[in-house]
């Protein structure tokens, strides 16, 4: 064990660094799974939302509003406490997180997709119709290709948000990066009584390193999409 006075050294004691990164990986992979499962669902729901069926629209809107209005943390609790009991199967925290985040992602993506689809100028749709295209052809040849530029950056932004939100996993017993951090602080409370600053600071940094590049990519793509639209 290293000198007791330098709090940051505990980050590099034993397997702590690998463990912290492992915790981060847990968070990121949960976010990744949620996206893999939520995005396709969201795209379908979003495409359905531009149909004129009022019942379908109301139901999908309700679904979106539920996930919009209830804080994510509360959604996580709802799923954590209620899902396993109702489903009668053994579900661990990770699975619950993936399902809860996945449904949330689907809700957000459905709105992104809908927003992007209806942002395609009306006269483009008219032009497609004037060529005799049917609904699916309009979607495939006109709406989707012209709105994908808007969807991609919004989706990347959402991915960053999902990763940040995985910090809440700590509260449903998933061994995420923060939980690992706390384990480390406790195991070393004698040698490093002030490790909190360093451990939390390091976790802060880890999140930033993961999320910031995503935000930058999203911004660059957004800018390009805007220039394309004007050009």
């Amino acid at each position, binding site marked *: 064990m290293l000198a007791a006075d330098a709090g940051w050294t505990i980050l590099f004691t034993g397997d702590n660094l690998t463990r912290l990164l492992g*915790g981060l990986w847990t968070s990121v992979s949960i976010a990744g799974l949620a996206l893999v499962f939520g995005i396709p669902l969201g795209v379908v729901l979003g495409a359905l939302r531009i149909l004129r069926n009022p019942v379908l629209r109301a139901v999908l809107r309700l679904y979106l509003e539920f996930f919009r209005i209830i804080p994510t943390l509360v959604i996580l609790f709802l799923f954590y406490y209620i899902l*396993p009991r109702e489903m009668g199967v053994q579900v661990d*925290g990770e699975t619950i997180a993936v399902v809860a985040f996945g449904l949330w992602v689907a809700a957000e993506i459905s709105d992104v997709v809908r927003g992007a689809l209806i942002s395609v100028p009306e006269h483009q749709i008219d032009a497609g119709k004037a060529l005799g295209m049917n609904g699916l052809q309009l979607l495939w040849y006109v709406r989707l290709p012209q709105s994908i530029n808007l969807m991609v950056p919004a989706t990347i932004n959402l991915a960053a948000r999902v990763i940040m939100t995985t910090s809440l996993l700590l509260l449903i*017993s*998933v061994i995420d990066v923060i939980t*690992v951090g706390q*384990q480390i602080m406790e195991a*070393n409370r004698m040698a490093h009584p002030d490790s909190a600053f360093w451990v939390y600071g390091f976790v802060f940094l880890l999140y930033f390193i993961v999320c910031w590049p995503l935000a930058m990519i999203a911004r660059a793509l957004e800018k390009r999409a805007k220039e394309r639209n004007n050009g």
Partner: protein
Amino acid sequence: ACGGSSSSDGAASSQQGQTVEQIKKAGTIRIATFGDLPPYGYVKNDGTRAGYDVALGNQIGKDLGVKVDWVQVNADGRVDALKSDKVDLVLANFTVTDERKQVVDFASPYMKVSIGVVSPDKAKITSADQLKGKTLAVTKGTTAETFFTQNYPDVQLQKFDSKTQQFQAFKDGRVAALADDNTYLYAWAKDNKGYTVGVKTLGEESTISPAVKKGNKSLLDWTNKEIKTLTDQGFFEKSYQTELAPSFTSDIKPEDVIIK
């Protein structure tokens, strides 16, 4: 990565949780424990779990002939971990109380405990009455929280999610004192100079037991038998010496903690 995940093999559990046979068949037992409470349940720098509770769990696993799958919980998650079938057994300093008996089944006790209060030497608290109008740190879902809520309503409680957080806040001087099971207060006060367990026992002395899902008779009976066997074999005394004694001050005797 750290053994936190439980098996999710999809085997539909009965209303009462997994029977001993089912556990043996599955080859793993899922046990809830703390991850931030040395010397009872914590994670060493190499990532392995250790502590008094953990030692018991490992022994249980060995005697069942199955692998132990540790699920880290916080105090307020222990009941729901059982209720929602996330674990088979709780070994997380789970104090037996009447309220809890309504919702889970406790096996025979393996430790004695009562609530203690630790405070800084500079402003030592020696009786619960001194706490009136002051703030006291507790962890959510612990007996200390319930005890003070019911018996000392004019003590202001600051409720934390985890042990780490409550001790951290206490050390930062955010509260006048901290109440928790006296046994870990002893251990904590030894690690942290300048703090003393001024109130050693509050309320009735209670016991700490393994808990299973309400109605899981199979596992309950097996655990009761196991505790008896282990007590007879002197397992808890040995475990006390290796896991707890190094963390306790010399005025604490094994009789104060373990059940003969």
